[in-house]
């Protein structure tokens, strides 16, 4: 019998020749002497009697073969060398002896062990189960073992799932699955790490949790990932990306604040992430602290999102299919006042500011409208009903095929989504101007084994959007509806006998003299249906990666290089006609007869005209080369290292100016060194050394180091008593620097170059007798500044991981602090007398952030049929300005931003509405450019200087970026049924209702019903009425940002619920399917919030009047073959 006993000697000696002189020494002693001077190791049976045989030897610089031949001569032992340095001593006699004692028939089983990519695994242990009999595989992964017929073999290899097979065939192929999916290895910057050795703060999510009935992945992020602040402001297809930030917004400059997004190692945009299908994602993780992001150096300060796509697995082709159909409708609709109230309020708004004004709407018109008489002469148009459908239908499908053999593996996926807008279509046009967004993606990942140690990976990816929609876009249609008078004109006139020949739609418009003062003559219906815009966006990426194992140099060393280039393009085409504008020139109020006139008989067109607004083309190139090294010594010392060099370049084809047209480039060298001892202590050092072309020579390169330690307390001896209840307890701490080079506005790319317009028409002059000599002038748009450089974040993180009760409960908590310096801000101290009209910037701002990310998971399988998973996470991220250059506010200390969150707003404190004229006269004057009278908002004079001005603004409310995001949910599986539900909320957010966007009649705004119900007027002289005194002109006094319009953005919503049924295998097998599941789900089902006017998540953007968020009901089918 051969029994393992691995004597690992002091390895690392490069010398492999042996000089040995010994007399009468035991074999085992000789072996250990050889071990001491070479890196050969010996494997033999310790008990074997022959090992105590004594031998003489005297060799100088002899080869191992030479020495072994001498030592083993006459012992009956033989040897062979495995894995270059492992000498296996065979006791042939012992094997024979056991043969004789064992009556069962033995036979030799040969086989090869590979991983799931078909690479041979050398050194995998093949053991007869229940015995200690075993062999190791050789370099080609081959083994041969002599076992009884029918014995079970147990095959194990580090990092792979141990497999037990019956020794049936003479030549076996054994595939070990890598344990990556089993929580053992996690994706980190430029590589992977054992989970136990991870020091940095990161959150990973099961990609399945990102499945939402939307073709936009970013809408799934909120509340699912601890450490991510995310919210969605618009529901328009194609424009519905959620905004998301890792650990909040930690810069208050004008530059990039959102995280770096890397998909398969390539930096891409939010849009590219949004287009990804969760089905294709292998892993999704976010890097939060300095150690996990420092390798990205000057690009990682805002956190990093790492996404990898699936790769093919060895085996026969498997096909996954998913198809969904969903119905979506707005979560809320802002209610508007009815037309009669609209007119009454308008008349009052006129008179209330100017008692001599003639009310625009006659009593006769108001009465007739109220009666509903002659709707074309006295129109009362519900524009929203006219323009929007109640709901719309969207479809999505995704198919992937994967499989492969020893040499190559593939994963190919295609997906398609069709999102429809909710606009109505006029049947009389032969084109459809409703929003229709088709997105297609195609992805192919192929892995090829070139040699046993070389792997080639090719990734091709294309994403294509085809859009058709109204000329001005869906958001503009909403905007038009909110800015059109409901009573001036109908959407269109029917064809009448006088105009029987007309082929076009006779859109209604107000007569030129009949526009209400302050109004406009937009017909939103005409604007929507007068034409359509097509746009097409494509993104293509090709990526080649070569991985080479360099075990022949030293074990555990690997090299890889990766090239990627991608192209993105966008173009749009607008086709539309100019509507003929019809109006009623005369009518008979009794009979309802009317005569139509055309305002623009020559301007209107029946035929389509055409324009090409924008075209964008961009390309980028990326090259990454890396060496990495990982090895375990003496089973306890785990060492790894990584050195990676990257260069990237991107070019935009139509950037609009010479300076912007120059390529953007980055170059960097990054490295990581880790050391872990006995799965208990881990330490890590990372650095990034980056350069960016944006800064002046001596500011271009920056060094960003970081370091961290982790202690797995639960692996200590003293923890043993606790280890049954607390399975894992790990503490982590990190500190380091990360930078952000994408600062400032895009126009200000090169701060160290001046930008001069040598042909500025605005700065020209004309001379000469008859003004005959003109020349344009010269203007400086930017003065050179050699000192500008990147923002630097100093981040520290303290984390704890806890697993309780057989890993049923897992808790992950991280506390972090961050200090950010060099935030690019304008220099307010620059006096006007300097004479530079451009803004001068400096790296002057300083801020700090701190927060907490916690996630709690609970998973329990009650019995075979019933399983429950519960999940919750909480993110708190707050910020504080520590230095913000501001003008001197003197004694008005509350105006300084230091000490307040970055997105804090300053606003006036609204006390109440003025009661009357004398109230106004007895109050401090409010000088905003419009006269103030009773019913206008009265502001508090904070500094008691007798005048309301800028100094009276105070920090009000919570910041505009929410500080708290949380989510919780559960999923329950009972037999074939599964049910899950997810709730999400946010808190500590304030927003303004944007009074200038909502002011009735100003810029032709419609009247919100809530304002119509409660506004200041003679019948309702309430100093706390919801809306102050009306005005048809801009009411600058009332439209100031003040507490009058401040609202809490906090909400909790029932974000998603899903119910599914997986058909039993015995049925699906008949159809050659491995899985068949049908499901139905819904998103944005219910909303709890104090704010009722519109979906509070939309906040103050477009004053909530934009394209609303959608409630979606969805059914789907998932089949695997």
């Amino acid at each position: 019998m051969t029994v393992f006993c691995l004597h690992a000697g002091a390895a690392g000696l490069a010398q492999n020749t042996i000089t040995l002189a010994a007399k009468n020494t035991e074999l085992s002693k000789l072996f250990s002497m050889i071990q001491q001077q070479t890196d050969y190791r010996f494997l033999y049976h310790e008990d074997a009697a022959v090992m105590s045989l004594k031998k003489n030897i005297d060799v100088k610089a002899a080869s191992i073969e030479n020495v072994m031949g001498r030592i083993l001569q006459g012992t009956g032992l033989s040897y062979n060398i495995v894995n270059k340095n492992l000498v296996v001593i065979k006791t042939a006699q012992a094997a024979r002896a056991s043969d004789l004692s064992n009556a069962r028939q033995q036979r030799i089983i040969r086989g090869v062990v590979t991983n799931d990519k078909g690479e041979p695994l050398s050194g995998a242990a093949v053991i007869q189960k229940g015995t200690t009999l075993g062999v190791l595989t050789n370099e080609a992964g081959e083994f041969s073992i002599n076992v009884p017929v029918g014995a079970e073999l147990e095959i194990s290899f580090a990092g792979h799932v141990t497999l037990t097979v019956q020794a049936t065939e003479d030549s076996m192929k054994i595939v070990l699955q890598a344990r990556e999916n089993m929580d053992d290895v996690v994706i980190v910057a430029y590589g992977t790490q054992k989970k136990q050795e991870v020091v940095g703060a990161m959150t990973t999510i099961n990609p399945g949790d990102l499945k939402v009935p939307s073709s936009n992945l970013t809408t799934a992020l909120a509340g699912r990932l601890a450490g991510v602040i995310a919210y969605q402001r618009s529901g328009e297809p194609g424009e519905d990306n959620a905004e998301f930030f890792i650990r909040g917004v930690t810069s208050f400059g004008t530059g990039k604040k959102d995280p770096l997004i890397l998909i398969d190692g390539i930096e891409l945009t939010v849009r590219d992430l949004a287009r990804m299908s969760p089905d294709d994602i292998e892993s999704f993780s976010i890097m939060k602290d300095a150690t996990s992001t420092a390798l990205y150096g000057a690009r990682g300060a805002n956190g990093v999102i790492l996404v990898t796509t699936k790769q093919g697995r060895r085996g026969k082709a498997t096909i996954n299919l998913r198809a969904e159909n969903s119905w979506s409708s707005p979560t809320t609709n802002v209610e508007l006042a009815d037309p009669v109230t609209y007119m009454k309020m308008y008349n009052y708004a006129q008179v209330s500011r100017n008692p001599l004004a003639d009310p625009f709407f006659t009593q006769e018109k108001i009465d007739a409208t109220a009666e509903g008489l002659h709707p074309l002469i006295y129109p009362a148009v519900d524009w929203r009903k006219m323009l929007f459908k109640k709901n719309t239908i969207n479809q999505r499908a995704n198919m992937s095929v994967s499989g492969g053999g020893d040499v190559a593996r593939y994963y190919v996926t295609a997906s398609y989504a069709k999102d429809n807008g909710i606009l109505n279509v006029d049947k009389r046009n032969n084109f459809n101007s409703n929003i229709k967004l088709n997105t297609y993606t195609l992805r192919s990942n192929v892995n090829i084994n070139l040699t046993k140690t070389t792997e080639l990976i090719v990734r091709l990816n294309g994403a294509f959007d085809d859009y058709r929609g109204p000329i001005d876009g869906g958001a503009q249609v909403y905007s038009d509806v909110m800015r059109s008078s409901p009573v001036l004109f109908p959407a269109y006139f029917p064809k009448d006998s006088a105009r029987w020949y007309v082929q076009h739609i006779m859109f209604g418009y107000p007569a030129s003299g009949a526009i209400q003062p302050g109004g406009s003559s937009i017909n939103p219906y005409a604007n929507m249906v007068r034409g359509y815009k097509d746009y097409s966006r494509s993104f293509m990426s090709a990526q080649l990666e070569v991985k080479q194992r360099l075990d022949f140099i030293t074990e555990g060393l690997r090299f890889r290089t990766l090239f990627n280039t991608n192209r993105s393009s966008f173009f749009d085409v607008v086709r539309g006609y100019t509507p003929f504008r019809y109006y009623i020139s005369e009518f008979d109020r009794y009979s309802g007869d009317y005569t139509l006139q055309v305002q623009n008989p020559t301007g209107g067109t029946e035929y389509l005209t055409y324009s090409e607004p924008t075209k964008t083309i961009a390309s980028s190139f990326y090259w990454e080369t890396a060496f990495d090294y990982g090895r375990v010594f003496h089973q306890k010392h785990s060492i790894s290292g990584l050195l990676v060099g990257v260069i990237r370049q991107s070019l935009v084809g139509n950037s609009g100016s010479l300076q912007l047209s120059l390529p953007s480039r980055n170059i960097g060298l990054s490295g990581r060194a880790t050391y872990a001892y006995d799965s208990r202590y881990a330490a890590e050092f990372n650095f990034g050394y980056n350069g960016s072309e944006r800064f002046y020579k001596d500011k271009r390169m920056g060094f960003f180091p970081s370091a961290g330690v982790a202690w797995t307390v639960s692996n200590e001896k003293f923890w043993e008593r606790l280890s049954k209840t607390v399975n894992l307890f790990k503490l982590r701490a990190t500190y380091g620097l990360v930078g952000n080079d994408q600062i400032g506005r895009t126009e200000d790319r090169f701060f160290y170059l001046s930008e001069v317009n040598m042909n500025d028409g605005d700065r020209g002059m004309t001379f000469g007798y008859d003004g005959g000599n003109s020349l344009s002038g010269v203007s400086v748009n930017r003065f050179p500044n050699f000192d500008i450089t990147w923002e630097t974040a100093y981040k520290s993180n303290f984390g704890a991981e806890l697993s309780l009760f057989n890993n049923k409960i897992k808790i992950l908590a991280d506390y972090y602090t961050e200090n950010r310096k060099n935030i690019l801000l304008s220099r307010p101290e620059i006096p006007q007398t300097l004479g530079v009209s451009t803004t001068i910037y400096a790296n002057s701002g300083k801020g700090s952030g701190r927060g907490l990310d916690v996630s709690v998971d609970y998973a329990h399988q009650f019995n075979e049929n019933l399983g429950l998973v519960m999940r919750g996470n909480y993110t708190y991220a707050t910020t504080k300005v520590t230095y913000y250059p501001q003008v001197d506010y003197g004694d008005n200390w509350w105006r300084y931003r230091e000490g307040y969150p970055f997105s804090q707003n300053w606003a006036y404190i609204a006390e109440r509405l003025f009661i009357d004229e004398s109230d106004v006269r007895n109050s401090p004057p409010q000088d905003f450019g419009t006269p103030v009278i009773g019913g206008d908002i009265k502001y508090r004079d904070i500094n008691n200087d007798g005048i309301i001005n800028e100094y009276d603004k105070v920090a009000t409310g919570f910041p505009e970026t929410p500080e708290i995001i949380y989510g919780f949910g559960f999923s329950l599986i009972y037999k074939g049924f599964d049910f899950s539900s997810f709730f999400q909320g946010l808190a500590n957010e304030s927003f303004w209702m944007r009074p200038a966007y909502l002011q009735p009649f100003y810029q032709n705004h419609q009247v919100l019903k809530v304002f119509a119900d409660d506004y200041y007027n003679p019948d309702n002289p309430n100093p706390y009425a919801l809306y102050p005194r009306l005005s048809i002109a801009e009411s600058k006094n009332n439209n100031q940002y003040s507490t009058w319009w401040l609202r809490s953005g906090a909400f909790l919503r029932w974000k998603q619920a899903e119910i599914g049924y997986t058909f039993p295998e015995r049925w699906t097998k008949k159809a050659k399917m491995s899985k068949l599941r049908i499901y139905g789900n819904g998103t944005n089902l219910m909303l709890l919030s104090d704010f009722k006017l519109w979906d509070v998540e939309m906040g103050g953007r477009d004053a909530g009047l934009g394209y609303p968020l959608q409630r979606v009901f969805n059914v789907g089918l998932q089949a695997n073959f």
Partner: protein
Amino acid sequence: MRKIIIAVLISFTGLFWLSCSKYLDIVPDNIATIDYAFRLRETAKKYLYTCYSSLVEFGSMSHSPGLMTGDELWLPNYPFNDGPTDYAWEIARGIQSSSSPNLNYWSEWNGKDAWRSIRDCNIFLDNIQKVPDMEEQEKIQWAAEVKFLKAYYHFFLITMYGPIPVVKNNLEVSADPESMKVSRMPLDSAFNYIEQLIDEAAVDLPDRVADDNAELGRITRPIALAMKAKIMVYAASPLFNGNKDYSGFKNDEGQELFNPV
């Protein structure tokens, strides 16, 4: 095979780091900078016109402070004939606001930024000697015109804002915040400086422009001297000269801004 792989790796990494030193130098040499304005006579002329371009449009209804800001002239409706906003008239109508004042010549709103013009004048005066293809005489004449304009912009600011800081030379944009804190100059010194500039300019200005068709409107000696006379009258007026109301009105260096006598 192994040797090949190692050779490839070494050359790869070698190439990588060889290429990097120049990799970030992407800006070509001929990016337009302010120096380009003074490389040819024609571009220098553009700069001269730029210095002129901020002169107040006293003839414009919407921009002239003298025409519409009082109530001598009134218009029937606002904005007048749906035309451009009548900024000047808004002042007469009482809609001037302190946060965004109309006809703002201090910083550009719907006025013109006089400080920027002064900076342009200084840049011109610093660089005009560099232009290679100009006659010396012409350089002197253009410089004299710009000197006059610099004096005039200072004078115009004084009429609007009283004592102002005088910008004899441009400060660098990257100067530290302390040196950017300039002080208002006592009125007498400011008027003296303006007068001195005009005197310097008047010597080099022509009596009459050479070509009416191309140059009428450019500064000549009679214009300069006439303005000087007007400026002296302002300087001598009781508003600026011995204004008792402003006695004790000092700048941050402790200098009396209005002379007491």
